[in-house]
Structure formats: structure tokens, C-alpha cells
């Protein structure tokens, strides 16, 4: 098992390198340099040239790449063109919100998907199963931004059940109980939207696994031993069927990243996805580069996690 995991980690190293080269190339193609915004038309060209020389912008590209990568590994992405503070601290302010939202969405996804998948599989071809299949089909087909907008319009504006923007009510004192409750309250609607979109694969998988398991010998044995039907499902079948679901966990991270751009924009939620869009609008390239690299690495790690979980739960794919 360790061999497989090690091999998988080794495969990831060139991937991270290629990703960093792509991002670096994109950064080179972007207009502007670290001094954009610091220079006024009155600045002497000689001073600019001197600054560029000192910052190493006249070095050969490979040298610049190595230096850039070294800085990036240490979390130094330079200064934001717009805010004039280090990029790392801007992202730091937003990262907490995105992680919190992703975590809640992640939990909600499984809370919704596992019962629905189990019930649909257990009572397959019943009306309940049909509803779950229809739900699954709609959640698969609907684009993220359409669902998010409809949710915001219906529950946020029309029914007034949830706040429509932001991550917390600014009037509340930081650290108080109300502050945290309010923060959680702001998270609910975007998290549910996320979760509804993430359930599709899990439900589909779980349902067909359970339907298949019903006729298997171990289930027949359990039944003939007199194990109550409820326990047959909650213990015997669930444990076997849930294994493939475990491997989807890492891929959920990938989905969350792509979705965060849409969800955070629509719910005006101050996270990294919204920062990405607003940086594009204000042409704050150093922030864009940092976020692209960060999200890229996060996706790679997500896929890695999926593969590792898979090798742990399923001995068949291990190599010896």
C-alpha cells in the first residue's frame, strides 16, 4: 500500500512543476510588473531601470523562474497592484472564509447524499426512489450559477429567510457569540447550494451499489441469520457500499474550487473565489497569479487524496 501511495506522490511532483511553469508563463504574459502603480509619469526612466535591475527583471527568464518559484514556496507573491500590501496577507484574509464555506458544504454534501442514496437503493423503483432519481438528474444538469441565482432569489430575496450577501453582519462586535452565530447564518445558503450540486455522483454511486448489494451472498447470509432488516442496511450493506464513496472525497475539493468562483460572486461572499474575480476586474495581476497557483496545487492535492483513499479502501488497485 505504501508503495502505491509513494508512487502516486512521486507522480505529483512533475505535475506541480509543470503547473508552476504554466502559471509563471501566464504571469509573464500579463501586462505590468511589480512597480505598476508605484510609478508616476514624472518618474525618471533611469530610476525605473535601476529598480527593474535591482528586482532582477532583466535577468534571463529561467533565472527569474527559479527565483519566483523560490519566493512562491515561501509564500511571497509580491505586492498587490491595487492594495499595495503583500499578496499573501490579502489572500490570508479571505482564505479563512473560503475554507469555512468549503468545509460546511463538504459536510452538508455527505449529510444529504448518504441518506438519499441509501434510501433510493433500499426502496428502488418506489416513489421515493423516483423522486431521488429526478432530483439527481436535475442537480446534474443545472449549471452552478443558475442554481445559485435561483436559490438567492427565492430564499434570500423573495422569502427573506437568509442574508443575501457578505460573510457576517458588520455591526456585530468581533468575538461575541452573536458574531459567530451570524457568521454561520451567512454560510448556510451558499453551503446548501454547493452541497446540492455536489451530491449527484455520490447518490448515483451509492444507489447502484446498494441495489447490487441486495442480491449478494453476504446479505442473504445476514438475513438468514436473522439480522434485522434495518441493521442489514445500516451495517452490512452500508459499509460495503460506502467504500467507493470515500474515494470521491478528494474530487469534491476540485469541484468546490471551480464552484467557489460562481458561488462566492453570486452570494457576494468575501472568499478567494470572489477575490479572484474582483482582481481580474481591477487587473491586479499579482493576486491572480498567486490564486491560480494556489487553486492549482489544491486541485492536485485533492486528486492525490482521492487516489490515496482509494488505495487504502480498495486493496485491488495496489501495486506490489
Amino acid at each position: 500500500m505504501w508503495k502505491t501511495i509513494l508512487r502516486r506522490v512521486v507522480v505529483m511532483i512533475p505535475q506541480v512543476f509543470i503547473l508552476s511553469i504554466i502559471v509563471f508563463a501566464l504571469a509573464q504574459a500579463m501586462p505590468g510588473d511589480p512597480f505598476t502603480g508605484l510609478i508616476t509619469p514624472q518618474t525618471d526612466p533611469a530610476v525605473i531601470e535601476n529598480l527593474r535591475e535591482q528586482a532582477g527583471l532583466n535577468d534571463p527568464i529561467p533565472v527569474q523562474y527559479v527565483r519566483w518559484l523560490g519566493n512562491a514556496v515561501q509564500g511571497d507573491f509580491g505586492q498587490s497592484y491595487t492594495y499595495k500590501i503583500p499578496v499573501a496577507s490579502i489572500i490570508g484574509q479571505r482564505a479563512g472564509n473560503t475554507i469555512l464555506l468549503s468545509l460546511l458544504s463538504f459536510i452538508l454534501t455527505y449529510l444529504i447524499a448518504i441518506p438519499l442514496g441509501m434510501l433510493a437503493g433500499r426502496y428502488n423503483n418506489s416513489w421515493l426512489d423516483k423522486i431521488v432519481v429526478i432530483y439527481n438528474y436535475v442537480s446534474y444538469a443545472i449549471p452552478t450559477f443558475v442554481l445559485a441565482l435561483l436559490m438567492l432569489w427565492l430564499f434570500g430575496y423573495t422569502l427573506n429567510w437568509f442574508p443575501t450577501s457578505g460573510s457576517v453582519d458588520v455591526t456585530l462586535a468581533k468575538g461575541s457569540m452573536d458574531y459567530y452565530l451570524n457568521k454561520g447564518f451567512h454560510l448556510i445558503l451558499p453551503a446548501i447550494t454547493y452541497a446540492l450540486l455536489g451530491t449527484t455522483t455520490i447518490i448515483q454511486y451509492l444507489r447502484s451499489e446498494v441495489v447490487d448489494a441486495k442480491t449478494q451472498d453476504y446479505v442473504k447470509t445476514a438475513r438468514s441469520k436473522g439480522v434485522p432488516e434495518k441493521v442489514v442496511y445500516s451495517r452490512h450493506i452500508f459499509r460495503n457500499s460506502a467504500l467507493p464513496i470515500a474515494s470521491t472525497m478528494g474530487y469534491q475539493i476540485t469541484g468546490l474550487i471551480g464552484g467557489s468562483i460562481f458561488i462566492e460572486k453570486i452570494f457576494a461572499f468575501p472568499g478567494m473565489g470572489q477575490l479572484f474575480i474582483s482582481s481580474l476586474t481591477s487587473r491586479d495581476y499579482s493576486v491572480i497569479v498567486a490564486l491560480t497557483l494556489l487553486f492549482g496545487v489544491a486541485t492536485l492535492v485533492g486528486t492525490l487524496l482521492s487516489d490515496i483513499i482509494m488505495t487504502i479502501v480498495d486493496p485491488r488497485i495496489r501495486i506490489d
Partner: protein
Amino acid sequence: MAANTNMEAQTQDMNTGVPPMGFKVIAREFVKDKGALIALILLVLLIVGVMIGSYVVDQNEIMWVSLLDQYAPPGDKFLLGADSGGRDIFGQLLIGGRNSILIGIAVTFITSIIGITIGLIAGYYGGLIDNILMRIIDFIMVLPTTMLIIVFITIIPNYNVWTFVFIMSAFYWTGQARLVRSKALSEGRRDYVSASKTMGTSSLKIMFREIMPNLSSIIIVDLTLNFAANIGIETGLSYLGFGLPSSTPSLGTLVSYATSPDVLENKTWVWLPASLLILVLMLCINYVGQALKRAADSKQRLG
């Protein structure tokens, strides 16, 4: 073992008469599944309606800004009301719908050509070529695609509809390549391919004239599902403002008017029709795709 089951299947077929082939299977599937039939009819009506409608209406007249009609509610003058510039929503819906559908078709077409070719090459040759191609595909698949497309779109000079189509295609051919490759891999080991090789048929001919037709049903299913996905991605990017250039309105552009809370809350006629049109299109295409998928797999057929 495999030959045995084949023989059994053949004898069964002989007992029950000739099994339906090709389009007959698909037709039977649609007759059996009324939902799929309704989805197909609705889809054809929508696409034909949008196409004809968008050529009948005058784009210049629709995009004409008249501030007097700003946010005119639906009524006699405007069937579905007007937007912030007093432009007819219904007309924009037709033009945006046409653009979104055409872009969806273009991207699906280009990604399929790349995907099928690479998938066939990887599956047919196998070995090292397959290994290299698959590593590249695996890598592209784990990239944060949406973000990279957006970044490409912002930094590319002379950005137009075609560059958008090509950028999107560059990232979305991998799924199809992977699917075709896995099928071509098993197909390439069959006897008819070996026989053809012994006869000296060129690899190119074997791949495209002999293996590809045997994969056609899977390819068609994948095309349909990709078409829906591509419309979703394009409208999503246009919604964010990083899709079609502003001179080419998309359904996503119409939905993006809902960025203003006032429009979202009080002027639903501006964004809701476009959202619903996207949703209905996606549901119909996917439903038809599912029916085609069942028709392609004899184990799942209803009819």
C-alpha cells in the same frame, strides 16, 4: 469463455429473430420512454424556434438603447419587458440563445475531433504512446480549468468569439479522449483488427474506418452530453463577464444583469427567462443523452 457467451447470445438472437439495429433501437427507446420523447420534441422546437426567431428579428433594432423604456415591465410593447437600456428582452433571448447554442455546437465539434483522434491513437497503438498521451490527459484533467480559461481570456489580445471557442476547446477534449481510448484499447485487440493488419491495411484506415464506426454509439452519447456541458460552461463564463465578447450577447450575458440586487429582486423579467431557458435546454439535452445512452447499451434498454 468470452467466445462461449457470444455463441449463447447468438443462438438466443436466432431464436427471437433479428435484433433491431442502429436507428431502430434509438427510435424504440424514445417510443418506450415518453419523457425522452417529450424532451426531444421540446429540444427540437426550442432550437428551431431560437434559430428561426433570431434570423427574423433585427439585431440592430433590439440592441437600440432607448432610455424611456428602461426596465419596462412585460406588456404590449415588449413581450418580456426591457433591460436597463430599454432593450427588448425577448429579442435578446433569441439572439443570446442562438449564440450560446452555436458556440456549444462549435466547441463540441472541435473537442470531439481532437478527443476522438487522440483517443484512437492512444488506444490503437497502446504502449509508450498511450502512456505519454494519458499522462498529458491526466494532467490537463486535474488543472483548475475554469480559472485558467478566465486568466487566458483576460490576457489574450484581439480577443473574439473564435479565440474563446479555441481556448475552451483546448481544455475540454480530455474527457472524450479518455473514453474513446479505453474503448479503442479493447477494440484494437479484436480479431477483425488483427486480420486487417495482416492484410496490410494502413493504421490510419484501421483506426478511422474500422475501429471508429464500432465506437459510434458511445461517441454519439458523449457528444450529446458534452453539448449540454459546453452550453453550461459558456453561459457560466459569459455570466461572469469572461465569456463571449460584449458584441456577441449570450444567455449568460442576460443572466448577468442579475448582478444588481435591484434587478435580481424586483425586475425578474430581465434575468429569469434566460436562466429558465438555460435550465430547460440543459435538462432536455441531458435527458435525450440518457435515452441515447440506454439505447447504446443493450443491458439498459427499455424498449
